[in-house]
């Protein structure tokens, strides 16, 4: 996965009825857009390091291709 600052990462729900989650990429710590990423979760602004697995997809919100 490659992402850039401002992208949104969506993590699909793992169980039936579990909602998808999403976070915003604040910093890219890997080389050439690779993980890990510092992300912000939701409106309350909690940040963490994120290591995307196969359950995660990136949405480029600023026009760049995946």
């Amino acid at each position, binding site marked *: 996965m490659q992402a850039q600052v401002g992208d949104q990462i969506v993590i699909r729900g793992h169980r039936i009825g579990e909602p998808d989650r999403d976070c915003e990429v604040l910093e890219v710590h890997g080389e050439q857009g690779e993980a890990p990423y510092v992300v912000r*979760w939701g409106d309350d602004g909690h940040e*963490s*390091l*994120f290591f995307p697995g196969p359950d995660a997809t990136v949405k480029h919100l600023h026009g760049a291709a995946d």
Partner: protein
Amino acid sequence: MQARAAIRRSGVAIGAERTVGEAARIMERAGVGALAVVEDGELLGIVTDRDLVTRVLAARRPADARVDSVMSMPVVTIDADDDVNQAFGLFRTHGNRRLPVLEGRRFIGMLSVDDLLINVIGDLVDLVRPVTAEAIFGHRDSPTPAYR
């Protein structure tokens, strides 16, 4: 299969200086039950939802307690390049349900018992499929050499 390929869920990590309250909210937002606790990218320990119950709520610690004061350590880990079969032995020996996956000393993801179960069941389904087809549609003979 290497351990890195068996990871089915994204890993989430938190800095050691952050609070248990933040850890709980990140777990809720990210939909995970365990966070890696890291410092400069290196794994120090893990904090689980159970840690928050037993070492924070039950112990009446405040929500602003540092997360590294309640994390579990030392942590049993597996190298990203190790064969995933080693994980079965580690889970059996240590009785934990999550195994941080490391690349060198750096955390890259969390392998869970659930991940291994899903992989095993996927393999079983692949094995059962032809047997089921045979039971329903009858035995399929392999082609015989043509006689001249």
